[in-house]
């Protein structure tokens, strides 16, 4: 009798273990609240500047790739651990953001998106990263 109860308990536990499915889907991040002064910021480097594919790319790979993925598709190795989806930089909607909006989202951040002001201190280097993010559009 005791053995039967033990066996039933084990089978029930096994069934629950295999079938129980807690919701683990990521949520898309909501709209950003960006100050008007930040939205209107303009890049200090021109499109096509040489630093975009050197400094910009290198800093993106070092600081951003692990969550956002090599092409900014939101498929970096750490992305799955986050509660918020890391978005897709290649979409037209994302690329329609102003320079200032991209700068604010990238360097000021919010919630799970860290502040990177102390990681990339030089302002021109930051704009090089934004310039590189612009090259990721489809």
């Amino acid at each position: 009798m005791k053995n039967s109860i033990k066996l039933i308990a084990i089978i029930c536990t096994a069934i629950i273990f295999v079938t129980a499915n807690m919701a683990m889907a990521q949520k898309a991040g909501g709209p950003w609240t960006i100050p008007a002064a930040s939205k209107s910021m303009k890049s200090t480097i021109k499109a096509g500047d040489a630093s975009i594919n050197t400094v910009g790319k290198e800093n993106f790979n070092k600081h951003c790739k692990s969550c956002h993925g090599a092409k900014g598709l939101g498929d970096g190795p750490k992305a799955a651990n986050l509660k918020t989806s890391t978005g897709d930089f290649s979409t037209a909607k994302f690329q329609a953001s102003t320079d200032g909006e991209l700068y604010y989202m990238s360097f000021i951040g919010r919630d799970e998106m860290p502040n990177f002001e102390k990681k990339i201190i030089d302002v021109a280097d930051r704009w090089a990263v934004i310039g590189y993010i612009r090259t990721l559009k489809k």
Partner: protein
Amino acid sequence: MKNIYITLRISALMILTLLLIKSTAIAQEEATQDTTVQEPTVERPVRPAFESGLLFDATTTTVQPSKTLEFILQHRFGYMDTEKYAKDFFGIWGASNIRVGLNYSFTDKLTVGIGTTKMKRLQDLQIKYKVLEQTRSNSMPVTVVVHEVIGVDARDASIWDQNEGSPAYKFSNRISYFTEVIVSRRFNDNLSLQAGGAFTHYNCVDSVYDHDRISLSFAGRYKFSPQGSVIVAGDFPLDITGIKDFKKDASATTIIYDKPNISIGVEISTSTHAFQIYLASAQGILPQEDVMWNNHDFFKGGIMIGFNLTRLWNF
């Protein structure tokens, strides 16, 4: 001997004071008919010469931005058995040394750190101050940093009371000092080099050994990929008769500690971490230990595997 030590310490303190006096920015103004004052040119500092403030056991000229906490783990496995390398699995099964430390940047130029090391139970306090910073315009071609490590040997007091006739134990016996000036240059995005001079002092040593030592250090890194570098460093104690205490009539079995510490390895850096894995010849970890107490020759099998790990938090 004591007079020379006092003179050297006073000289070092005077040099340190002079270097710490801030110089004002040089403003550019042109004498024109126009009455508007031109804004002084803002000098942009170069990107850091090294990925981390630590390279093997050496401090680099990289100072983290203010309000940054850095966790440091330095591990040294045992020396490899040069006759049967597999016997102790290349030193991995041998007697190891480890240091755990924390550094905090109070300002963009000043970092203070504490740490604890297994061998000799050394507790350390470290201060690093960036005196000059290399600029992108090359108006300042190098970065200069001053660095102080105060070590306290926390072993039992009986260590200093082993011979009849030796002076009574005092707390100051435990203390050692390492004072250095480091100069670095970031040549380009791939190559950075640094060189330094240091003065090491141990308050209390066995009668046949030196209290003081002057050393030169060199370090460099070459980036072979966006996150990977080859790293090399060496600390070379100098043989200066004027500050030597070593007695010529010491017995033939006395170990002579005068070998340089050479390290070579690879560094992988990410946004928050730096990992270094390497071969080194000194096991002391604290720089004064490496300079004063190394008798292993890197080129004659006196090597061990080591790894460092640093992690940054920005507040």
